[in-house]
């Protein structure tokens, strides 16, 4: 069964450092998303991406965040200068027709 893969599974970084979270969506999917989940809370939408550009973003997705699909397969989320409150699980999802398939997530810990 096709799946969305994310790396790394766990990232620890110092406050103020840049991090890049990586995702390999399902190969024939065209719509990609990043969501985050702070421990014990609900899953929150960050950004959607289609045709090599952002199609929608939430108020969480400020200037510190960026996404790109550099090589046609990987889909990355960059946080330029991490803050303590960025600590969360980050999930990548891809959509074919309607159902969103989620990756296993990257646990980001900012210290």
């Amino acid at each position, binding site marked *: 069964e096709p799946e969305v893969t994310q790396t790394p599974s766990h990232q620890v970084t110092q406050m103020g450092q840049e991090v890049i979270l990586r995702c390999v969506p399902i190969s024939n999917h065209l719509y990609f998303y990043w969501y985050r989940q702070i421990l014990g809370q609900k899953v929150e939408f960050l950004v*959607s991406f289609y045709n090599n550009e952002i199609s929608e973003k939430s108020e969480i997705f400020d200037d510190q965040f960026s996404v790109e699909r550099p090589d046609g397969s990987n889909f990355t989320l960059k946080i330029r200068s991490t803050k303590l409150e960025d600590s969360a699980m980050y999930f990548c999802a891809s959509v074919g027709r309607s159902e969103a398939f989620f990756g296993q*997530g990257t646990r980001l810990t900012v210290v």
Partner: protein
Amino acid sequence: GENVGLHLPTLSVQEGDNSIINCAYSNSASDYFIWYKQESGKGPQFIIDIRSNMDKRQGQRVTVLLNKTVKHLSLQIAATQPGDSAVYFCAEKKNFGNEKLTFGTGTRLTIIP
């Protein structure tokens, strides 16, 4: 604003019994609803979905009920098993296509052996 939320944060059910998890939403424009299961340390896993032109849909051991009049969604799991223990989220979006999902707050289901 939009709100998709769950009535109960935790639910414990004896193994073999049926469970019902409820969800309320406030966006009457929502057209498509999904239940996800999230096991510890994993991403949300699709369970079952329903479109707004239906009021009931059945899968394997799961049934989703939609009541658009009162904006209520429920997930019924029959003959629960230990592997059903997880957090369950309802999610909604405005159409069947590629819009973003808005998730509820989740219910932790614990199956008691």
